């Protein structure tokens, strides 16, 4: 889980320029100004490329915080 989180933090940095230290499992879209509807898709594409996985629409709807993102990624690895 920690390893996946660290890689997710890096993707947040690449996508939104957010300091990786500020991204925790509890982080939600309201904590990251650029994490809006378009940002969400950009983030998802970067995660897909970074982890070599693909998300379906229901995965995207479920990514309401970083904990859920990590959980969904883990379920596909």
């Amino acid at each position: 889980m920690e390893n996946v989180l660290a890689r997710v933090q890096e993707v947040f940095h690449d996508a939104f320029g957010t300091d990786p230290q500020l991204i925790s499992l509890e982080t939600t879209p309201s904590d990251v100004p650029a994490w809006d509807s378009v940002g969400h898709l950009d983030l998802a594409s970067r995660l897909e490329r970074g982890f070599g996985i693909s998300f379906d629409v229901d995965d995207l709807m479920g990514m309401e915080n970083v904990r859920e993102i990590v959980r969904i990624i883990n379920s596909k690895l």
Partner: protein
Amino acid sequence: MAVTPGNNFSGRLVKRLGEHSYLIDAATGEAILPSDLHQLIPSFGASLLSTGLKPGDRILIGCISSPSSSIAYLGAMYAGLVPVPVEESVLVASIADMLKGTGARAVWTEKSFRFDGIPKTGVLVLHGHPAERRADPLPSARCEKNALAALVATSGSTGIPRFVMVSHGNLTANTEAIIRSQYLSNDERAMLILPLSYCFGASVLHTHLYQGGGVVFDRRFMFPDKVLHAINKYECTTFAGVPTVYNILLRRSNIRSITMPSLRRFLQAGGPLAPQRVAEIRAAVPKPKFYVMYGQTEATARISCLQPEHLDEKLGSAGRPLDNLTVRIVDEDGKNLPAGQVGEIMVKGPSITLGYLNEPEESLRVFNHGWLRTGDLAHLDADGYIWIDGRKGTFLKMRGVRVSFAEVEAKVAAVPGVYECTAAAVTHPEVGEALALYIVPDKGAGDVIDQVRRSLPVYWTCESIQIVSEIPKTARGKVSRASLPVKAIGTYE
């Protein structure tokens, strides 16, 4: 006390509210009843006047897509103040520029913020839900038809936004023409995900309330299925989106399986949506009518509309001018061009706004004897339909909103380590057009790419940043966007 309609747009709107005029927040379930809304707009206006603000004073309204922002905006206008709707996040980030640019005497946000950069005296900072700021309602402020009703931000030639001066008469004329073009009845309910600070978003609020209908607000479009379920739950009849929104719905939502039987119409504006995407939306949700529209903040909101019954025949067109507007296509000397020839679109009519605040020269250039120079290039066909062919190379359109290259370049050039910058537009699957930046760094500067990325507003999408040794220029020393390495779009210089 009886309220006479008069010229005050908000006053007229309040008078026309009906039994369907609910304002609902889909995320929280908060609902403002029609009878309360009828009271809240005037009483919020009265509470502003009780603080010592006077009609004509400008007030920044921090907007999120919500009932309370809408009431604050309409309440200020009702009292004769001049609301300046600004996205709450933008307001918090650039309050000093906003105050300076508008001369506002007050700022309202629903939540309380610690604003940095506000002068210690002279600016009134107000917050709280309009329902908590009540005063005995007064009649709407009397005003002339061409009195300033609102200032609406748009991208200018510097890093600081420019403000379009919209009159009460502009709002009334455009709202009534849009209602006619969409055949809105008095039992409509719009699903609004667009910000109120954006003229398209505001026009949806205006038209639905003015016609006695209501609005559901939803800020959760990053999870589009939630919005689609809310359309169903609240039985919305209208959905409005820019191309980005429809692209996301088609690629990243369950629009094909979520049922929305109440929906009567889709509204689409804010740049061209590929004809193929229009066809896909109609195949996914066949019942609602699909309206393509074209407009600009400088024209209050909407300029033209493609009626659904002509959609197949004229797919790709921006439709015909609203019934109170005249459109012509002109060459560079301002001479009328015949059907089929491409030139700049000029628009005249009662919804052409008063001009740019504090920019007399630019206003004279763009608003020429009542004719608005749109900067968009188009031709008319034999039936009078507008076909947009591009635009003069001064803007790109991200998420349906115009952003001037000059503003982008001014912002990037201000980042330490940047010697020179130029911006181009590239096509992007979600936002329509995104930025491609070319930067000449200062000698010995560190990692400017990261710095630049962080300095851009969050609602700008930057596809690429490239470090180059020089910016291509024309013989006259102007930046030649056409000579940039990417295939830039929208450059008709």
